[in-house]
Every structure is written in structure tokens, then in C-alpha cells.
């Protein structure tokens, strides 16, 4: 009975943490002189209040989910991928150039090719830090972040130069953007909303990633390497190769998120000079969604929807109750902090419960958690 209550509590913990974060946010709203109930009402209506609002939420959730799927793979393999932003950008650049180059091919083929290009682009961008980590012992947190910076500059260069919209090139304004994709290359939309086929693709991929992780030899190996590289090595698994693969796949899914943004939402790439100008920070928020979903591809679906809702709802909240936009960002941050902390707390609680239950049953030999191995955790 008690254990059932415990597991119910554990399952609801992210929700409780979210509510607690909103509670703290309410205090901040009060300080700013806004009515929290009104503000949160606006948030709710903005995210779920109408078909269109909900569709917008799903549109925002789609890239989050795709990035989150990659994060599930890499974090399960004990590599921390902070490079989702850069991987999205590079995937999008490759995918966009496919769409702008093969204008004579049928739509479905170009879309398929673009998906592949996005996958490859992100894969390369993730694979490079993977190789650096596996073979040169370069910390992947640093390298993936730095790869983000490179990707942004690469995007700015491409969009101002080689890939610039020909019509812009002739104008004095020279807005750094590509030409628009042809009509047949755009992902199917559920008119009149902006909800597009990409959302469905992301859900299908979530199921595929679940299968990859728990039903295939590759997934078994990635998880084994992530959990215990020593035992994996003893068992004959090539640890380095699987570190590279975990980061490469992780990047590939982010790259796909970049492709989906172009083909499903904007139909072109445009830059304001920053990474988030294109990605909407999905490369980072996807990490949070994945953690919120307990690094499980299926649970990442509702997690992504929740964060999509926060993004969309916060915008409408800002419009309706006139609060500074910084507060919206802060609110997102609060949710992240609360959820991640609650997860850490849950694990500790669980460990204590387990330890208590099997006390005396612990093996007397060295505790493999402690030896001087440096385990990096974001």
C-alpha cells in the first residue's frame, strides 16, 4: 500500500514540481503588480484555449520532441549533448539546400531527401564531438557548445552569401534569408492551423527510438556503454564506437528537428544572427523535455507538449497581462529548475528506500559508484 502511494507520488512528481514552479512564479507576478490567476488563466487559454492555440502548442512541441529523442539516446549512452542548437542549424542548412537545389523533383522525394539531409547534417555535427570524446578524450559538453557557436556563424555566412535569397541579393536591405521552398515541398498542414505533418513524424520517431533503445542490439550496447563502460569493454563491446554513435544519433535527431522547422513552419531559413533566432532554443529546451520525460522516448511526448504549451502560453500571457518578456523566460527556467531538482530528489529518495529495503544485502566489495571515475553530469 505504502509502496503504491510512493510510486504514485513519484509519477506525479514532475507535475507537482511544475505547479510549485508556477507557485513561485505567482509570487514574482504579484511583485510585478500582475494578478497571477489572470496571468495563468491567459497562459492556459493561450496554450489550450482553442483548436488553434492547441495546434500552436503542438507546433512548438514538435522540434522539442525531436531534439528530446536524440537526448534520450545520448544521455542513455552517458554522453551529454548540449549541441542541439548547432545540430538543428546544420541539419536545416543541408535540408534547405536540398529543397532549393532539386526543384524539378516530386515533392515527396524532395521531402524524403531533405529529411535524410537533416539527419546527416545533424549527425555530422554531433558525430564530430563524439569522435573527439571517444578518441581524444575531449569533454563533449564543451565541444558540443562550441560546435553551436561554429554552426551559428556558418549559418550567418551561408544565409548572407551562398544561400541568400536571390531577390534579397538584389535589394539594398540584403536580409539574410534563403528563398522560400516551393509549394509541393512543404509538409502537409492541417488548415487553417499551422499544425503540420512533422508532429506526426516526431511521434512515430519516438516509437522508433523506443524500439531502438530497448529492442535492438545497438540500443542495448549504447545503454550498456552508458551504464558501465568497463563491463561493456569486458563483454567485447567497442565502447568508443558506441560513444560516437550515441552522439551522432543524438545530433541526427536534432538535425531532423531543424529540417522540420524549415519544411513545416517557416519554409525558408532566416537568421537574426543568433542561434535561437532560428531554433527558438529548441536545442536546449529539448534537453529539458527529455529529462522531464525521464529520458524515455514515449514519456518525452507529453513532456514536449507541456513545454510547447509553456512557450506558447507564456507568449499570450505576456500580451494579455503586460509583463516583461524576461519574466516569461524566468518562468520557463523555474519549471526547469524545479523539475530537474525534483528528479534528483526522487532518485535519492528511491535509493534510500532501496537501501533500506535491502540493507545488509549489499555486496561487501567496492561500490562501483564511488571509484575515482569522473562522471560528468549536466
Amino acid at each position, binding site marked *: 500500500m505504502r509502496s503504491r502511494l510512493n510510486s504514485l507520488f513519484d509519477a506525479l512528481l514532475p507535475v507537482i514540481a511544475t505547479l510549485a514552479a508556477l507557485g513561485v512564479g505567482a509570487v514574482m507576478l504579484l511583485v510585478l503588480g500582475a494578478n497571477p490567476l489572470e496571468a495563468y488563466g491567459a497562459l492556459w487559454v493561450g496554450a489550450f484555449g482553442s483548436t488553434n492555440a492547441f495546434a500552436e502548442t503542438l507546433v512548438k512541441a514538435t522540434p522539442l520532441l525531436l531534439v528530446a529523442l536524440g537526448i534520450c539516446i545520448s544521455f542513455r549512452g552517458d554522453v551529454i549533448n548540449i549541441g542541439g542548437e548547432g545540430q538543428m542549424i546544420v541539419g536545416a542548412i543541408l535540408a534547405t539546400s536540398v529543397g532549393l537545389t532539386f526543384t524539378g523533383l516530386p515533392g515527396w522525394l524532395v521531402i524524403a531527401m531533405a529529411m535524410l539531409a537533416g539527419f546527416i547534417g545533424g549527425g555530422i555535427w554531433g558525430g564530430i564531438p563524439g569522435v573527439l570524446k571517444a578518441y581524444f578524450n575531449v569533454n563533449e559538453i564543451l565541444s558540443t557548445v562550441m560546435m553551436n557557436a561554429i554552426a551559428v556563424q556558418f549559418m550567418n555566412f551561408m544565409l548572407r552569401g551562398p544561400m541568400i535569397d536571390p531577390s534579397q541579393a538584389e535589394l539594398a536591405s540584403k536580409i539574410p534569408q534563403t528563398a522560400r521552398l516551393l509549394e509541393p515541398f512543404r509538409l502537409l498542414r492541417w488548415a487553417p492551423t499551422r499544425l503540420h505533418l512533422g508532429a506526426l513524424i516526431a511521434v512515430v520517431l519516438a516509437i522508433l527510438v523506443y524500439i531502438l533503445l530497448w529492442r535492438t*542490439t545497438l540500443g542495448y*550496447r549504447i545503454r550498456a556503454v552508458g551504464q558501465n563502460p*568497463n563491463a561493456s569493454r*569486458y563483454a567485447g563491446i*567497442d565502447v568508443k564506437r558506441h560513444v560516437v554513435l550515441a552522439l551522432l544519433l543524438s545530433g541526427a535527431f536534432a538535425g531532423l528537428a531543424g529540417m522540420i522547422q524549415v519544411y513545416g513552419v517557416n519554409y525558408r531559413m532566416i537568421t537574426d544572427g543568433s542561434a535561437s533566432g532560428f531554433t527558438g532554443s529548441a536545442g536546449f529546451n529539448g534537453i529539458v523535455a527529455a529529462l522531464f520525460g525521464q529520458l524515455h522516448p514515449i514519456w518525452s511526448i507529453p513532456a514536449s507538449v507541456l513545454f510547447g504549451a509553456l512557450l506558447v502560453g507564456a507568449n499570450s500571457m505576456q500580451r494579455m497581462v503586460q509583463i516583461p518578456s524576461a519574466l516569461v523566460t524566468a518562468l520557463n527556467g523555474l519549471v526547469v529548475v524545479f523539475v530537474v531538482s525534483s528528479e534528483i530528489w526522487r532518485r535519492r529518495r528511491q535509493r534510500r528506500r532501496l537501501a*533500506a529495503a535491502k540493507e545488509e544485502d549489499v555486496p561487501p566489495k567496492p561500490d*562501483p559508484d564511488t571509484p575515482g571515475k569522473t562522471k560528468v553530469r549536466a
Partner: protein
Amino acid sequence: MPEANILPSGKARIDSLEMRGVTKRFPGVLANDRVDFDVKSGEVHALLGENGAGKSTLMKILYGLYHPDEGEILLNGKPVTISSPNDSIHLGIGMIHQHFMLVQTLTVAENVALGLPSSRGLLTDLDRVSKRIIELADIYGLKIDPSAYIWQLSVGQQQRVEIIKALYRGAALLILDEPTAVLTPQEVDELFTIMNQMVKDGHALIFISHKLHEVVEISHRVSVLRDGRKIGTRPTSETTKQDLANWMVGREVGFAPNRGVVERGEVRLKLEAVSCGSDRGTPGLRAVSLDVQAGEILGIAGVSGNGQRELAEAVTGLRKVTEGKVTLEGENVTNLLPVELTERMLSYVPEERMRDGMIRNFSVAENMILREHHKMPFSRSGFLNLGEIARHSAELITKFQVKTPSQETLAKNLSGGNIQKVVIARELSRKPRVILAAQPTRGLDIGATEYVRQQLIEQRNAGTAILLISEDLDEILSLSDRIAVIYEGQIMDIVPREEATPAKLGLLMAGVKDESASVVTT
């Protein structure tokens, strides 16, 4: 003795400590059930019991890490409350943990001073600490250099630092939690000398172990716990090893596994002048030559850190062989990858089973296929065959008597003995041609030890070649057909079972070739 009631360390003696009716419940488990236990000044009271019997819980209660649900603790006849290790240290109770609580990159003095206020306020007082360490070391015959770094010390020396640490903090009663598990026979002797000295000076010692001969040798009284209950307390002189073992397990225990007579077959594993490095950059193995035949167990005896690990790693492809040749069933396998050796049916029971043999957060079933996960029938064109995996692990769980709630249980939730059973099941069920077993029973309780040894013997009887690396001389003597002694990376000698005596092996393990010869130098 200088003064009555005062220890040489200058602290007050603990004349008696008594735990009365101590009960501790964990969800679903009664870890201690009305346990009475007492220890007096000037005695070693051994606490025996299998893993899970409740020894650690009882001691953690005494040390203030747990609070008992019922029962009381009396110190010198007066009830005391111990709610944290701080309290127990204050009362003069010290504990030497199995895993040393030392900072490797600090010196002995720094480790001893760690967490204590300095006598100079904000400035360190390491010189005073060092002086005091030397004083204490003199009194108790503990040779230790306060300025040495922990990483430079052997395991036995590190343990001495732990003892000094406890004495420095004024321990009059010392709990030693399986202190010999990590020591060489020589280091055990030294520890016992120290313990005897402490007892003579009026300390009270609680000694936890499952090694019966040690209990018989060092303790004055012995208490046995089983399933959380105390079975009894007796003067050690009135018991025998066999009595104690039966008491502990609750049934008759056979010490020596039944070794059938087996015709030895062809040479399966051969090492010719194999050399390799070690992690410290010094030579690990130096021109080691040996062979293991089908149907025999070749035991590698030696003091810890004399090349055993390097030998295991060189044979299993985890360490680069710099010179020499390794042959597996006639094929040169020098420096092949671990996976290639696995495919040639070499099985490996690693020394650090939790680090190298197991994935803690994988289920029992997933761990059972760790070596063969990529092969038929467990994997088909890249997809795991979950049905087959479940069937296979269910079969192994039954066959190897793994106690687990289910095959979906995470490995980390099993006891040490059962974890080793999973490793043994996985490695032995592959029908290996050669098995390398490193410290296969280290840290296991009697029941599990008996089981693992029996399994190895059965494999030998079935004609498998087994290389057994163990620092437990009893194990080597009871299992091996031939015994090779390793010292500083060299094989000192290979002795047939019939000619092997502990005395003879002990000399070889210390680097003495024969009684007349001098110690082998590098």
C-alpha cells in the same frame, strides 16, 4: 598498563558496552530481531554471520548511523543514546569501515586531521597532528609515515591509517568491519598483532568477518547472527570452525568441494614468456610462462598486487602484451580483442564483478546476455529476441540458483553472492573451453562461496581448463591441481597440489625461491 581505566592513548577505557534487545525493521525486512550483544574492555568479540544476517545493521546502530526501533545501548552500565557518528566518536566508539574513508591525494596527517578543528584556529596544525600520529604509532606498533600520501600506501598500510584515525579521535572501542577482506596473509598477521596489542592495553574490539579461521585465531568470544537473530554467544575456545559454520548457515557445510579424479587433457591455454606493463608504468608481468590443460585448475597464488590483475588482463585481451605469446587451443591469440577471445570460448569471471562483470542498472536478464547479446538466438538481424532472452535467463536463474524476485530485477538490487551467481551463470553456461576466474569468491558468504567453488570444480570435471587467480590461499589449496606462485610479475614456481603446503607457498609468495636462497631481487 599505565593507569587503571586509562588507555595508552590517554583516553578513558570503555569497560563494557551492551546492546539489549535491539530491533531494527526495514520495509519488509526484520534486520535485527531483539539482538543482545556486548563487548568488554580487553577482548575481541567476533560477530559472525552470512551476508544479510544483520551484522552491519547492528554495527551501524552502534555507530549511530541507524536508530534502533527497540532496545537500548548501555555504556559502562549507563544507558546512552547514539544518534549520529559524532555521538559515538564522542563516546569513544570508532569504526574501521570495509571501504576506507581516505582521500587518496592527501597525506596521512591530512587525512587524520580532516574534519577536526585545528588547534591553531584558521591555520593548520599538521605538525602537531604528525607528532601525535607518531606517538600513537609507537604505542601501538603501527609503522606509518605521517607525510606519506595515501595513494603511495598499500592496502594494509591504508588500513593502519584508518586505525590511527580512530585512535586519534579517542576510540576506546573499535568496530572492525571485515578488516581482513582486503589484506594479504602477512598483512592479516600484522593486523592481528596490532589488535592483540590494543586488547592488551584495554581496548574493546568488535571483529566482523566470515573467515572462520581468523575468528578462531583472534577472538575471545564469538556471536553468530542468522536472519537478524542472534543464534548464540560462546567463548571461542569452546567452538570449532565446523560448529561455527553450521551455526551460521543453519545446516551442515562442506568445506572441501568434491574433486573427482579427472584425466587431464591437451593444453588449452599457454603463455610463453609473456610480459606486459602495469597501470603504474612499471612492469606488470615479466616473462611469465605457464600452461593450463583441459580438466585442470591451475591456481595462481600470490600477495595482492604482484601482477595478478595484469595476468588476467593480458590473457583476456584487455592489456597489451609487449613480449611473448599467448596461445589458446594451439592458436596464437596474443593481443586479440576481448570480443575475439570471447568468440574463441574464453570465459572470464572478473575480479571486480560490480565494475567489470555487471551492469548495475540492467536487469538480471539483460546481464545474462552481456557476452552473447549480439548472437543468435538473442539477436536477429540487429533486433533483440526478448522471448528467447527471457527463456534463457529463466533457465539460468533456476540452474544456478540465483535468488532474485524476477528476471526483470535490476542487478544492483541483488546481494553480492547472487550477483556473482549471475556472472558465473553467464560465463559458465557458454560451454567455455577456458575459464579465467579472478577472486571468484571474494566478499561472498559461506553459502555462496561453497556454491561457486563447486561450480568451478564441476567445470573442471567436465574437462574445461581453468586458470584460477585468488589471494585466498585456502581457496587455491582446496581447488587447484597445480599451483603457480606469482611474485613481482614473475612466476616463482609451479607446484603440484600434493606438494603444496601453506608454508611452502607462503615463502614463494614472499619472493623466497627456497629456504636456502635469498630473496629474489628485481
